[in-house]
Each structure stands twice: as structure tokens, then as C-alpha cells.
């Protein structure tokens, strides 16, 4: 048992003003709509900067475009989807229009990815060791022996007991928690500048999720990371900054404290009120009425307006993502900063 007393490290907080590592500008990802003249915009004009040492949470529900944004960063948007507009820069280098072989180098060297389901992120017919050594040899110009040693340390680093023996193991021989640790080891083995974790703990049980979040906090507190999650609670545990996405757009950004204590966008307010908290008064949950727009819907104006209690006629026009009292918001009618979430 270990007891962790620090949340996201202070080091990471002070690094909020650090160098921009990754810069995304006006990203648009489209999918063709069968039998319709217009495409579906899964990601619709997303811009953000990721700074050195920060953990940025990308929070949203299914269909919000959060995973598609992450896949764009790696150049692996599934066909027939395509990046239509925008640019992605890793430091000073544009990476969204690289040829495949160079992109591959970026994926291994510069950006490490942890997927939700380790069974799909790992090769089921190859041992853990061979997958780790392959990645190390491809990206680090080392011998097989050296790679094996690197693989051993990678497993040891993510808290896998008996790492030497685990190198021989196949993914199916490991528990869900251990598999996710192997995925993390694989993502970290070449010391990438940026780590992207897409719902990395969603498939895990609560006590195992706590272990992985603990690992993130201990090992990755100074890493530059994008954490994609639907769970505001998970984001609260390890993120420095949060971007809330809805229908392919960013609707609110702020530090974790800002977003949790004074959410401004009605969707963020709604998300927080819909989650059960341990409260003996057991206030009735406040659901967000209706459902998010689907790929078939053509959205005009604010995409959240049909579900929004505060929608007005001006919400028929699309609100831009702008600074409002120091918070980046896309809303004509934000909740006031002093108003408490229910």
C-alpha cells in the first residue's frame, strides 16, 4: 500500500507559463455523411497550446470530438475521416502534413500514446518484451541486448512487479491493470516530449484506476501530457488545466480550480451537476435534458443551445471562443463567476 499526499505536483503548476510544446490551430476533422452533400465535422475549429510540464485535460462526452482531436495529433484519424483545415505544430515543426514515415518517427519519438483498451493497443500474439524492445530499437539506435535492458527498466519504472519475468509474458496473461501499465511503459520507452492518454483508466476497476492515477501522479507529474477523459473526477485528480469539448468544439478552458469551483459555460455547469457526489442530503441529480447532436444533425448556432436552460435568441449565432473575465469561453450567456454549481 502506498499513500500519496501530493496531488498534481506543484512543479507542474509553476510550469504553466512554460514553453509551448504543442500548438494546435483551427483544427477541423471531417467525415463524409453517406448520402448527404455536407460532411460531418467531428472536430470543428479547435485551437490550443500545450505548455511544457502541464497536464491538460480534454473533457467531454462521446461524440464531443475529444478522441478525434487526439488522433489528429498522431496523424491517425481513421478513414474516411480527414483533417480538412488547421495546423499542428510540435515546437517549431509542423507535423500535420508529414509523410507517413516521418509521422511514424514522431509517434514513437516525440509523442507517446496510451489508449483506453490495452488489448487493442498491444499486439496480442507478441510478448511484452518483444514489443518494448522493438520500439526501443527502432527509435533509439541500440542493440537488442541494450533494448532488452531498456525494456526491463521501462517495466520497472511503471511499477510492474517482477519485470524480468513479465518481459516473457503475453498481454492476455496479464491483468487489466498490468496491461495498462505495459501500455504506459510502451508509451514512455522512448522518452517522448508529449504523452497523450485517451481514457487510459476508463476500462479499469475503481481500485485499479486509483493505482494508475497514482502512477500518473508519481511518474508523470512533470511530463507534458494531454489526458482525454469523460470523467471530470479523473481530470480533477491529475490535470492542471481543463478544456471542455462539446460537439467538436471547445466550450470552456480554465485551470482545474477555476473550472471545478466556478464553471462558466452552462454545459460545464451541467456536467458537474449531473455527477453523483457523496452527500448525505442526496440532492436529486440535475441531468442535462436531451441528447448531444449526432453525426446526422446539422448544427447552426451554439451546439449546446437546444439543451441549454439559459439559451436566448442570440444563441442562434455561434458564439466564438473568447476570453471572458479571464476565462476562455464560447457562450453568449455565461454563468456568473460567483454563482455556485448546484
Amino acid at each position: 500500500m502506498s499513500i500519496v499526499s501530493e496531488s498534481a505536483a506543484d512543479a507542474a503548476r509553476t510550469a504553466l507559463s512554460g514553453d509551448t510544446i504543442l500548438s494546435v490551430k483551427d483544427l477541423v476533422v471531417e467525415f463524409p455523411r453517406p448520402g448527404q452533400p455536407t460532411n460531418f465535422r467531428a472536430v470543428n475549429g479547435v485551437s490550443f497550446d500545450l505548455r511544457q510540464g502541464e497536464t491538460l485535460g480534454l473533457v467531454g462526452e462521446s461524440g464531443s470530438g475529444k478522441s478525434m482531436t487526439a488522433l489528429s495529433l498522431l496523424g491517425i484519424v481513421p478513414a474516411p475521416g480527414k483533417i480538412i483545415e488547421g495546423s499542428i505544430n510540435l515546437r517549431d515543426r509542423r507535423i500535420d502534413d508529414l509523410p507517413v514515415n516521418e509521422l511514424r518517427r514522431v509517434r514513437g519519438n516525440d509523442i507517446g500514446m496510451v489508449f483506453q483498451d490495452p488489448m487493442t493497443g498491444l499486439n496480442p500474439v507478441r510478448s511484452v518484451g518483444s514489443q518494448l524492445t522493438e520500439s526501443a530499437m527502432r527509435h533509439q539506435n541500440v542493440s537488442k541486448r541494450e533494448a532488452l535492458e531498456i525494456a526491463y527498466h521501462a517495466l520497472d519504472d511503471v511499477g510492474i512487479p517482477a519485470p524480468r519475468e513479465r518481459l516473457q509474458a503475453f498481454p492476455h496473461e496479464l491483468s487489466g491493470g498490468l496491461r495498462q501499465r505495459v501500455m504506459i511503459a510502451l508509451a514512455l520507452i522512448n522518452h517522448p516530449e508529449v504523452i497523450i492518454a485517451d481514457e487510459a483508466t476508463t476500462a479499469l476497476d475503481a481500485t485499479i484506476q486509483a493505482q494508475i492515477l497514482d502512477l500518473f501522479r508519481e511518474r508523470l507529474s512533470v511530463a507534458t501530457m494531454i489526458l482525454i477523459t469523460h470523467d471530470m473526477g479523473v481530470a480533477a485528480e491529475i490535470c492542471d488545466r481543463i478544456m471542455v469539448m462539446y460537439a467538436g468544439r471547445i466550450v470552456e478552458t480554465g485551470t482545474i480550480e477555476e473550472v471545478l469551483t466556478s464553471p462558466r459555460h452552462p454545459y460545464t455547469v451541467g456536467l458537474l451537476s449531473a455527477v453523483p457526489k457523496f452527500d448525505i442530503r442526496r440532492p436529486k441529480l440535475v441531468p442535462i435534458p436531451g441528447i448531444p447532436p449526432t453525426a446526422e444533425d446539422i448544427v447552426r448556432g451554439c451546439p449546446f443551445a437546444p439543451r441549454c436552460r439559459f439559451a436566448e435568441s442570440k444563441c442562434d449565432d455561434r458564439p466564438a471562443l473568447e476570453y471572458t473575465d479571464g476565462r476562455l469561453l464560447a457562450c453568449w450567456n455565461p454563468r456568473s463567476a460567483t454563482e455556485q454549481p448546484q
Partner: protein
Amino acid sequence: MTNPQDAAGRQGNSEYLLEAENLKVTFRAPGGRKLHAVDEISLGVRPRETVGLVGESGSGKSTVALTLMRAHEPEGGRIIFDGQDITHLNERELMPVRRRLQMVFQDPYSSLDPRWSIRRVISEPLKAHKYGTRQQINDRVAELLEQVGLPPDAANRVPSQFSGGQRQRIAVARSLALQPSALIADEPVSSLDVSIQAQIINLLRDLQDRLHIALFIIAHDLALVHQISDRIIVMYLGEPVEEGPSDEVVGHPQHPYTVALLSATPVPEPGGDRKRIVLTGDPPSPIARPNGCRFHPRCPIVQERCRTEKPPLTTIGPGRKVACWFAGQMDPPRDLWALQNVPLPPGVEPAKRASLGS
């Protein structure tokens, strides 16, 4: 007095509508070994009450649900519904029970036939139980759709035209068709988005208020179970480790596993230096269970005794039970928000609790 009928028309002496006594379910694992899915669990759900069963994957909670529905044969123990022992009833004898005991499943994508119209989905139980004429059935379908907040024209559409949350509403409507007195819901919201989960939880709460059904809800999310349940049972590796009124279990957890589960639940609250207990290792396999207390290999306060002697589920207060030799000796390591004010259960001294990690 034998078999008196109470005001609600129930038979028997038990206060419970749905009851399991020492239920035991095993499966045959590869190699001829026994998988102990559920071992000696007893539970009772009173009329109009909500009982929540919490556990992680592999804890046996879904097996409990399916066994209560008689989809698995128990190796031992009894299932009693409304005073009647239904453990060994055959399908024909079960028909009247099935009418009154219904189930909602986790995944509304696989629990609804994709080719059937919603009318057919909801009216199937009505037809199977010879509810009435076609007109009466159609009226009932319309009434049910309204109860779960769907428009009447939904009846003519097929499941693929609905979102996950709407499909779960349809599944709830189907389960209510025969006016059951008890409903078993196995992870009814875990496949849904956060904003939609609250809709379904509130729907279940409303329906229970209006229709006075007993609800047995199974979930991995302790916060969610606390939100909806009157009483909570916590399960680990096929066995109950703690049970009691919801606020007490969450406010004053006695078993170290409950404490760990509580501490592991991420909550969207800003926390400067939040402390948490992180259990090491994975839950053991139900094929090779550890001796003594099943939880001892992961227990933060394990003692020698726990490795060899299995602690019995012991009553420590009204409706309050725990299976731990050192119950109540581990405090939740962080503030539990609004739960600070829960009165201590009788017989529990706050002074004897050693606070961990401080």
C-alpha cells in the same frame, strides 16, 4: 399463525419482498477447477426499498442478479420472492414470479432486438403474459412510453433510431410493462454518458416513488449507488464484506475494502493535497481464492490472524454488518465532503479509530 397475508397481499413472515439466503454459485473452470462466483451471500429487499450492491468486476455482483432471476442455478442457498421459495421452480411455475420480478440490463445496445419495433419490444412481455386485446396492449405501450419520457410515436421506430439513453428508457419501459413489484437493474447507466446517466437515475427514482417498486441495483460506482440506495451491500470476491444504511456505509465505512473503494472514487472537487489509499495488486482469481480473509493480500491493515482465519459477517448495529477482524480501524484518509455529519452507528467508538497516513 401460518402464512399471514399483509396489507400488500404478501405472504409469509418475512419483511422482505426479494430475499436470498446463503446463496452460493459456482462455475466449472478449465481444468476441472471450481470458480466460486458467489459464496454465501444473504440479502433482502423490502417493498419500495432500494438496495445497492457494489463491487468491482469479478466480485460476483452480476452473478447474484442473474441467479436471483433464476438464470443461473445456485449450488446452495435459497431465493425467496414474496414468501415463496423460488429456488427450484420450473419455467412454468416461474411465470407468475417473472411477471412481478423484472430486470434491466447494462447494455441497451444488446438487450433490445435491433429488428423489432419499439412497440414489439415493449409489448412482448405483455403478450407472453396474455395481458389483453391488441388495443389494450397498444394503450399500455403508449402509457409506458410516456412514463419513461418518450414520445408516443417512438413505438413505430426501431432501436437504432434511438440514443443509448433513450434505449435504456425503452428497456426500463419493457421491464415495467407487467407492473412488477421488484426490479433488478444491473449497471443500468454504466454504458451511458455522464449527462444521460443522471436522466436514467432520476427516472428510476421517480418511477419508484410513483409505482412503489422495490429496486435492487448493481453497480461498480459507489457514489452512484449511494445516491440512489437506502441500503448498500459491498461485495469482494464473491462475498459480502460490509452492509448497512447507505449513509452509514459511506460515512463510516468499517471494512478496509469499503474505505479503499471510497477513497478510490474520483470526485470532481478541487483538492489541494488530497490523500488517498491505493491498494496494491489486483483482486485475486475466484478460482484460487486466498485463505483466511479473501481481502487480506491487498489489505492495508492486515494482521497475522487474517491470513488464516476467515472473518464472519458480523452484526455490529441495526442492519449493519461487516466481515473483518479489525473492523472500523481504518479511517477514510480524506475528508468525505458532506458526510462528516453522519451519526456514528451505535456501538462504534470514534476514539478507537486510528487515522491512517496522518
